[in-house]
């Protein structure tokens, strides 16, 4: 981790914006995947976390 970035303005500052964007993109991809799976489960089974009872 870059020490210069951590000290700027008392806030956490990204040492390199590129890697931050990559992390954000990864986060968005994981979130979109989770949402897609949730929607798909709800559409197909009517529930997201429980086992559907026939």
């Amino acid at each position, binding site marked *: 981790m870059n020490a210069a970035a951590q000290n700027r303005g008392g806030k956490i500052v990204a040492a390199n914006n590129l890697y931050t964007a990559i992390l954000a993109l990864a986060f968005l991809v994981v979130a979109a995947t989770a949402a897609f799976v949730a929607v798909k489960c709800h559409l*197909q089974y009517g529930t997201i976390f429980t086992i559907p009872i026939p």
Partner: protein
Amino acid sequence: MSALTKILIILLAFSSFFLCGIVVTYVATEDNYKEKYDSQRKRAQVAIADKNRAEKLLEERKNAYEQQEDKLNAKIALLVSEAKDIGNKLTSEQRTNANLLKSVSDMTSVVETSDQTAQLQTQLFKDAQAKLQLALAKQEKDQRELDELSKSLMQKMAIIDDLEIQKKRLAEEKVELQAKLANFLQPAGKVIVEPLLVTPKIGFAQPVDIRIRNIGTSDVGAGDVGTRDIGLHGLITDVKMKHSMAQISIGIAHGVKENMKFYVTRDSKFVCEIRIIDVDNEKSVGLLERVELEPRVGDTIATNL
């Protein structure tokens, strides 16, 4: 930021991309198992209903089969009994057939015997036919002779009819002549004596013995045609000289007839004649004729002197 951190960020990012891509691909291409479950459930329910229906149908078919089986068993029993009856009939028919075969063999021998007899009968028939031909020829000849005899018989019958007519005429003439002769002889105190016929009387269709007896009793040439005396005698019972009439003591019962003449005698003397004019049963009355002496009661009268 260290190089290791950067490498980890990159690895984490790519692994996240990779994992998310796999998950999305999997979830997107995954089958809808709920729908499959529902469809399978429906199919299972339909299959259960079909099963129940099939079981019910099976039960009905089973019952129908049992009923049909019972009927068929009854029919089989009936047919078995009929088969037994038919078997019994067959046995009896076989016995009958055997008897008939035996009878046929017997009849065959009888037929052979009959054939021989028929041949013999045929020969006899031919002989009899030949005899019949001869008899027919003879019969024709006899028939011709019979026709001729019939013709002659008819002619003789016609002659006999003529003779019968002549005989009747002669008999009538005879009766007439006899009446005339009786009237002629009666005053003389005589009657006709029937002559004994030379030819015997033979009627039609008399038996032979009667004809012979008639011929035997006939006195051929024993009598002649002639007269005999009447032979009546009596007495005078009353005299009416005023009327020239006298009554005598005999009448119809003694054979006295009208116009009969009586001679009156007294002691062998001729007195007179009396011609009868009225006749009663026991007495008669007549006129006095050729009176030579006066008649008196008690004088004798006679038809013949």
